[in-house]
């Protein structure tokens, strides 16, 4: 099964990437001219993007703070959002650290969210709460749920960990499946559909507050080292445009207005900050370690 997903994933990615490279310029120009007052902002499922109130809070704040009409664009997979961003169909997007590293040459950081005052988060390996496991080795042979093949915390970190421990990530688990949302990983583990999962530690902790019934059915088996928090990025070259400047300004000053604080409250974030791209070096290290495997 992992091979099936993997091949499907690579095929899709190759196809989308090639399609994007052909149409990127024309589409971007067309989009700029056709909708210059709208800021198209992509959201990956790393966030709690199924929360209508949260989306509304983000849209309201960004519209007020930037003066642009905000078009929030969500897609099922990281890959789709990343492709839209890289192809210029989005002005900016909140993406994961892994796609940022993958498209490092095409993308630039606009702002990095800060959780508990720091631009870091962890990946969690979780299992059912009533299961007696304390070590990742005990998860061997599980049916395992990943979030997304382009997710750092929901895929890459676990893959790198297994590789580092000398296991073949393809065979360590009996079966793997992708839920395309961190929340769904938790649901899959909590329901018993899978025995373990790889999930964004930030999402797990936030859901622990907002949906304790769900999260209480799971427990953390292992917490990873700290990684750079999924950033807001834009296509290189767009950073100097008014839209991105206004967006960056709005994000960095989000703690200063009522709407901004409301948005941050929904996200359980302490604010947005500027961080160097080196924040994601540890992600890049994992990618490098797994080169030839992924």
């Amino acid at each position, binding site marked *: 099964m992992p091979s099936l997903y993997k091949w499907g994933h690579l095929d899709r990615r190759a196809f989308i990437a090639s399609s994007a490279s052909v149409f990127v310029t024309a589409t971007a120009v067309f989009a700029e001219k056709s909708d210059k007052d709208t800021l198209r902002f992509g959201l990956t499922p790393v966030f709690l993007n199924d929360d209508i109130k949260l989306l509304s809070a983000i849209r309201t704040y960004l519209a007020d703070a930037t003066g642009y009409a905000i078009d929030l664009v969500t897609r099922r997979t990281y890959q789709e959002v990343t492709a839209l961003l890289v192809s210029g169909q989005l002005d900016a997007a909140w993406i994961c650290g892994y796609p940022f590293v993958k498209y490092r040459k095409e993308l630039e950081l606009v702002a990095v969210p800060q959780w508990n005052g720091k631009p870091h988060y962890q990946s969690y390996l979780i299992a059912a709460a009533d299961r007696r496991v304390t070590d990742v080795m005990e998860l061997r042979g599980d049916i395992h*749920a990943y979030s997304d093949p382009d997710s750092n915390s929901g895929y890459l970190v676990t893959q790198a960990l297994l590789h580092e421990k000398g296991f073949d990530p393809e065979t360590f688990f009996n079966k793997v499946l992708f*839920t395309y949302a961190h929340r769904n990983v938790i649901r899959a583990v909590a*329901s*018993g559909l899978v025995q373990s999962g790889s999930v964004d530690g930030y999402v797990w902790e936030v859901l622990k507050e907002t949906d304790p019934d769900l999260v209480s059915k799971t427990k953390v088996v292992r917490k990873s080292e700290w990684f750079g928090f999924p950033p807001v990025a834009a296509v290189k070259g767009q950073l100097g445009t008014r839209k991105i400047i206004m967006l960056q300004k709005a994000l960095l000053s989000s703690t200063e207005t009522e709407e901004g604080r409301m948005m941050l409250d929904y996200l359980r974030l302490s604010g947005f900050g500027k961080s160097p791209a080196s924040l994601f070096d540890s992600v890049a290290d994992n990618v490098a370690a797994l080169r030839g495997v992924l």
Partner: protein
Amino acid sequence: MIVLRRFSQLSSSVRISLIVMLLMAAVSLTLSERVLSRLSENQQSYLEGLANSYLGGVAASVSPSVLRRDSWEIYDTLLRMKPEKVSVLPLETIVTTPDDITLASDLPNRFPTFQPVRSEFLSEFSDDQMQLNTQSELGFQMRPIMLRGDTIGKVYVVFDASSLLEERREVLLALLLTNGALTILFAGIGFLMVRRMVGPMQVLENHLQTATSGGLERIAEHEFPKASRDARRMFSAFNTLVDAEREREMLVDRLGKEERMGSLGRLASGMAHEINNPLGGLLNATDTLDKHGHHEKARREAVTLIRRGLLGIRDIVLAALTTYRLEKGARPFSSQDLDDIALLLRPELKGRAQTLRIKRPDHKPDQRGDYGHLPAAALRQALLNLLLNASKASSQGATIDLKMTEVQGYFLIEIFDQGEGLPEEARQLIEASLASSVPKGSSGLGLWVVRQIADELDGILSVRPNEPTGSVVSMKVPAYRKEALNAAA
């Protein structure tokens, strides 16, 4: 058979009501069975329609995910499609590969992902139609997931059919209550109608039963049914019959009286005849005394003849007195009466050198010495006559026994003689079912009086041989019948 016999002993109104009730119960059962059967078919059809609709939706929604073996998508779809507020709720939905490996279920803990589905679970399903388990109150249906003619997976669904079965139970209860109430109502109406219909027959039956025990009564006007002409006609005919019967009875009574008067005449004639014979002897004796009184032997013979004649006359007079002029102030028979009887018989017995032994009742008489309420005069007469007969029948020097015992409310009086047996005429008089007319000849008169007295006291006379010779005449009379006392008086 016992039930049928008991049933046939019930009154018509009850029998017909029971039959109505049984017929109604049979109709109710048949109707209930048909209604429940139809309801069951409708429910099955409804459940199958519901299941097909649900399974069709699930199969269409998950088929792309089944093709990709995407357990999460299947699981997520199942959860999103699961209805929450329907009467027949799908409890478990399982999507499998064609060879029954679980891809996902909405209850993953019961059906682990990528594990074979348990065979006992699969055995609940049929390939083509809904299976309803009334014990577990669950419905089971499976549907293959087809893609271009190929089976790419299967959907199994388990429905909670308790609401449908509950509905069946409620319908059954409603049917039972309604039909039960209607059955009782119709049986009650049937009972009243039949009772009304057979009511006149009941009145007629009561009058006929009363008639058999001697109380023939006309049916009163207020008992005539107002509506039924047939019954009125029947009642009128019955009353006509009663009138005719009464007339006949009056005629018989009148004839009886006339017969009695005739009997009296015959009695008077008999008495005259009985008295005339000794009178002739007496007159001869007086002539003998008159002419030969100075001869010792002739005088004695004449005196003996006179005594015998007078005794005969006394018997006749006593018999007449006893039969037709019993004393009004009858007193109960007592122990003293037995002594009197012995005293009265003494001369007769002495003449034959006979002995009388009296055995009195075992129990002591009451404070006044009375034996029950037997009329003293009548019984004294009866005993006297029987003992005189016994004395006459027995030989010189014989012993005559009078035995009086009380047995279960009766006095049994037995006279034992040592004669040569009763004459046939006397035996017939004792054993005949009805008292015959006054017998001819003097010998039977005493016994005839006894028979009259026994009849009036509701007594029974009988005779049997005595051992070694003679007869035992028994009279059995009720000990405590006041009316007998009064009637005798």
